[in-house]
């Protein structure tokens, strides 16, 4: 599948944004994060920025962005529509919760209802993002039970790393946030590892013989493609990454996305480092994670092989 930069930016940025929203509201309601004004401004500011950046970026992927509002209508059948509805709705409770926190300095009832709703909606949005891909039977590498949990873990991991960094910058207790970041990173790493193992060991289930129905005569080979230059179908669905690059990129995704952030976050948690060193290390963890997430998401698309390629010369998919 063609890795569109707008979709990579959308899924990574909004994933981190919704992950941060979910963790901030949850930890504040549990009394772990103090509802201080400027801390709230920073946390909600970053979360809203990332979420909005992601959603705006996703509209750049559209051929007709001005009609994007129509995507709210088909939530009964479409995961993309569900994602749009919940993503947009999340602004309401999150905005109210931020209002109570930042303006009134109050997150106790009734403001806390908005907080719980924020947490719930943020998680649901990320789940829908994962299900958009997981529901596509045409792409075996996406049609996997691990895909939606993977998106959720990555959102918690990137949101946790971000929350840890902001709390360190404000010199507030960040050990619990750091612990959640570590748990999210470990969970995401494990899920991603299992995901890669799953797509590497799964044998292809569809063949050119099935696609054409000509298997009774023997092996099916492409003789003449229907057109001289790649068409939309080949440009969009025919993109595959060279094996050699996939291995290298997986290594970089693991290094930047998981190993470095885990090492840096553990370092800050385990050692009683100075404020300056804690900040530097948690900023490093976030920067590394951001690079790793972009590589991971690019690979998620590039390694996905669509069954339509069977009509264009692929033997199996």
């Amino acid at each position, binding site marked *: *599948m063609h890795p569109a930069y707008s979709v990579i930016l959308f899924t990574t940025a909004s994933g981190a944004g919704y992950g941060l929203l979910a963790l901030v509201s949850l930890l504040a309601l549990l009394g772990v994060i103090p509802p201080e004004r400027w801390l709230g401004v920073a946390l909600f500011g970053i979360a809203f920025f990332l979420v909005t950046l992601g959603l705006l970026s996703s509209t750049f*992927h*559209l*051929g*007709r*962005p001005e*009609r*994007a509002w*129509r*995507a*709210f*209508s*088909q939530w*009964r*059948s*479409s*995961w*993309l*529509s569900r994602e*749009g509805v919940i993503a947009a709705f999340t602004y309401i409770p999150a905005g109210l919760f931020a209002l109570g926190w930042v303006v009134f300095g109050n997150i106790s009832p009734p403001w806390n209802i908005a907080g719980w709703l924020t947490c719930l909606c943020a998680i649901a949005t990320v789940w829908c993002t994962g299900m*958009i891909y997981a*529901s*596509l*039977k*045409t*792409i075996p590498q996406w049609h996997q039970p691990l895909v939606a949990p993977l998106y959720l873990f990555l959102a918690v991991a990137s949101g946790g790393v971000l929350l840890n960094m902001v709390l360190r910058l404000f010199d507030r207790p960040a050990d619990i946030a750091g612990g959640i970041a570590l748990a999210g990173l470990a969970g995401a790493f494990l899920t991603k590892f299992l995901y890669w193992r799953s797509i590497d060991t799964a044998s292809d*289930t*569809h063949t*050119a013989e*099935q*696609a*054409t*129905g*000509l*298997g*009774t*005569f*023997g*092996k*099916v*080979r*492409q*003789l*003449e*493609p*229907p*057109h001289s*230059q*790649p*068409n*939309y*179908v080949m*440009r*969009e*669905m025919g993109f595959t990454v060279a094996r050699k690059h996939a291995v290298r990129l997986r290594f970089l995704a693991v290094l930047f996305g998981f190993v470095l952030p885990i090492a840096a976050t553990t370092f800050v948690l385990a050692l009683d480092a100075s404020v300056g060193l804690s900040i530097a290390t948690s900023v490093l963890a976030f920067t590394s994670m951001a690079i790793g997430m972009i590589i991971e998401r690019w690979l998620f698309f590039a390694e996905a092989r*669509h*069954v*339509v390629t069977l*009509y*264009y010369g692929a033997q199996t998919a």
Partner: protein
Amino acid sequence: MTMLPEKTDKKLGLVIDLDICVGCQACVTSCKEWNTSGYSAPLTDIDPYGADPHGTWLNRVHGYEAGEGREGRTVHFPRSCLHCEEPACVTVCPTGASYKREEDGIVLVNPDTCIGCKLCSWACPYGAREYDYAEGVMKKCTLCVDRIYNDTIPEEDRIPACVRACPTSARHFGDLGDPESDVSKLVAKREGYDLMPEMGYKPVNKYLPPRPARDGRSSAGAPARLSEPQHTQPGTGTTSTADKFFAWADTVLSR
């Protein structure tokens, strides 16, 4: 509305005979010609006279080789929307622009409400949907919905443009939901099949398999296969003088 209808009154679709398609591309050009000014107008071409021409076409004809040696054959393989009974391209659509008609089962995209998210093309295993880069919306086969019910054109033209254009009658159009229709009978007789039935989208269009190769030589009294060439010429594989003599003698006497 992207929820699918419970059932459709008709199942209009195509039957494509792979035995007699000669790959002339007449259906492809005829489709483009009609539809670039029809329901899906325009079907834009990008860089048509340049180095990388491509564009939106609703029907494509592939050429495959199937099998090896004497049993192998070339198959011309037209590919367009199969108007599935349970199409995932419709249910994934977030806007309702993609829909399946209750009255005849035709799957359409409303070009006025499509946002061009391309998700439907990801959901289709058959590559039936092509994005129009210039218009920013998805295009697909309409089964010539603007011909088949069109009272303003002669009755013989009220069939899809591809079917009308086919010079070998490799394409047939009709109601595949009616077991008594000509197309249904044809499918039953020729054991028509679905493409990728394992995907579960229940395509309406059917493909008729190439018939087994007929061996016309035997009916003409000729041997089914030429016998192996006999190495009886002098000097081919024999060395001794006596062998050469007998080989020469054999050749002379065989005349």
